[in-house]
């Protein structure tokens, strides 16, 4: 049930909080249902947030098409999760650290990863994972839960360096069943370290429904086991996701320790494009109620009402996204083929004899 009024996000940001009702600001029509917690965003910032989401929707569409054409490799659809992904990352500063899961490529791009590198990651090319020093992020994590324990370490590092920054990490609903999920939030809690843990609950872990992961009524309440605040938010509502993440960030950088955020969302696509088909396991008609909750619809209505958005503006963003994708694919195509000798050189700072021997052998082979 959506929270209507008189509960501030601050009041939820305490380890003693036992209120895991869903925080919502915009309803499905884009009406503000919770004006007290409306985030402090300028008109430009609101337009940016909408543009990010539209851009990401196009990226999803194009990524799907490019995957079907064989021009991309591994791809995990993001369609439907725009508010969860872009709303949260918008609340994050450039010097904050991002540890994404495999579905969290849009956040990486917003955090500074060039799009062509994201495409190279999808294809399986090392150049996609060569992150410049200033990009505070790791490549998408394939081992579900590993990003959580690593985030605890980054969070403690930030705290030890006295940085007013956070690490933000993401997993899905299925991921909350992993040991590393619990260890990560528990370690960060134990050290009062600078972490924001996001659970994007899209209802399904491949074919396994959220209800089969746990008998817990919410995933946010798993925070209680770590003694840290947990907040459930409408993950189809960009303003609510942004507001909660922003307040959580303030809470964390003030030295209070980590926060767990559960975003209730839905992916309209399959788990990945590697052969998954939700029709095999989702009851018929599962998607329809969620289509009405589309984050783009409510944000579009909200901004149009305020005179900040129009069909033309949306088309403009869509065109820009398509051009960005086209340029990035071209850039990815131009990246030279990988060499085994380069892989060998990337194993250790100083190649042990056994590696050096193989470098020499492969370099000779590659010179032919």
């Amino acid at each position, binding site marked *: 049930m959506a929270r209507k009024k008189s509960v501030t996000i601050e009041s939820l940001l305490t380890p003693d909080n036992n209120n895991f009702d869903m925080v919502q600001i915009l309803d499905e029509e884009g009406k503000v249902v919770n004006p007290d917690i409306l985030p402090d965003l300028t008109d430009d910032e609101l337009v940016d947030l909408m543009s990010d989401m539209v851009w990401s929707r196009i990226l999803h569409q194009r990524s799907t098409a490019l995957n079907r054409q064989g021009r991309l490799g591994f791809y995990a659809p993001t369609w439907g999760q725009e508010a969860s992904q872009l709303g949260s990352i918008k609340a994050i500063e450039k010097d904050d*650290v991002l540890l994404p899961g495999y579905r969290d490529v849009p956040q990486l791009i917003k955090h500074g990863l060039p799009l062509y590198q994201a495409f190279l990651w999808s294809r399986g090319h*090392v*150049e996609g*994972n*060569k*992150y*410049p*020093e200033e990009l505070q992020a*790791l*490549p998408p994590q394939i*081992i579900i839960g*590993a990003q*959580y*324990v*690593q*985030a*605890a*370490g*980054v*969070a*403690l*590092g*930030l705290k*030890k*360096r006295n940085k007013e920054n956070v*690490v933000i990490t993401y997993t899905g609903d299925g991921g909350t069943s992993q*040991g*590393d999920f619990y*260890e*990560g939030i*528990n*370690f960060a809690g*134990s050290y009062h370290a600078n972490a924001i843990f996001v659970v994007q609950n899209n209802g399904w872990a491949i074919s396994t429904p959220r209800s089969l992961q746990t008998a817990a009524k919410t995933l946010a309440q798993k925070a209680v086991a770590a003694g840290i605040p947990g907040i459930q938010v409408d993950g189809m509502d960009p303003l609510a996701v942004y507001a909660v993440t922003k307040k959580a960030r303030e809470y964390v950088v003030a030295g209070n320790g980590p926060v767990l955020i559960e975003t209730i969302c839905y992916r309209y696509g399959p788990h990945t494009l590697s052969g998954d088909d939700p029709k095999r396991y989702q009851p018929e008609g599962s998607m329809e109620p969620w289509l009405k909750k589309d984050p783009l619809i409510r944000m579009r209505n909200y901004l149009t009402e305020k005179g900040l958005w129009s069909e033309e503006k949306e088309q403009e963003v869509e065109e820009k996204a398509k051009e960005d994708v086209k340029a990035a694919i071209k850039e990815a195509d131009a990246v030279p083929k990988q060499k085994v000798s380069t*892989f060998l*050189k*990337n*194993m*250790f*700072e100083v190649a*042990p*004899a*056994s*590696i050096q021997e193989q470098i020499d052998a492969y370099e000779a082979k590659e010179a032919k």
Partner: protein
Amino acid sequence: MAQKTLIQAVTDALHAELKNDENVLIFGEDVGKNGGVFRATQGLQDEFGEDRVFNTPLAESGIGGLSIGLALEGFRPVAEIQFFGFVFETMDSIVGQAARTRYRMGGTRHLPIVIRSPFGGGVHTPELHSDNLEGLIAQSPGIKVVIPSNPYDAKGLLISAIRDNDPVVFLEHMKLYRSFREEVPDEDYTVPLCKAAVTREGTDVSVITYGAMVREAIKAADNLEKEGISVEIIDLRTVSPLDVETIVKSVEKTNRAVIVQEAQRQAGVGAAVMAELSERAILSLEAPIGRVAAPDTVFPFGQAENDWLPNAKDIEAKVKETVNF
């Protein structure tokens, strides 16, 4: 210079590096105030503070993740896994994550992590404390596995491991912790990683070994010398990657080789050494390569250790078999 046990040499190395580099952090279960279950970190928290030497919650995977995250923030984590039998809880952090980071990020990030952990039989521990699991990590690309056999090497190798910019698993044999003393310089020094040592020179047969089996090999060599058999002992020190050059050089001289490990036959790194020798030194061999290893069972119940663990007698027998082939 002072006579020190292996565990004192470990503490010395940790002390030296905490002092030399403010990014060095030591953490694990009970390594703080308690000084570690074997006293390896004794006094370090008192001297360097809780910021540098601290306890963790009881969760090995969390400790592995903590190491990775701290290394990403520019620290040099020296984490402890209380007993290496507990490595299964953190296999992903070590070989699935830390060992791969430099490679997967094309050299743009690296993780200077040391995982210290006790292991090894002969001290009647409960289950899953003593297992020889070095072979598991040795098979994983991107990580070094170091096993010292004496106090001098322990200090020098650990300082090298901490200064290394790639992950190192540093395994400390429990039976060697306090079983003998040796001269250990007070000042800092390093012993190179990925470099085997010729512990004893000989001419008739090369015994290639590591860890507690080095002591057994020395005992065996002393006895064999009385019978006129001259044994050269190679202590691998770093069991992965292997120092193939030193091994091959020795076998080319002695023309016979016996590999000795405490781990089960199907485990350890013995098979890898044999493979390298087969590939590189077969024309020097006058006998098949001999192997001394534990039987392929689960690590024994405490009371059966003496019957199960390989020892000097097993080495003597195998050396004679090889020399008299």
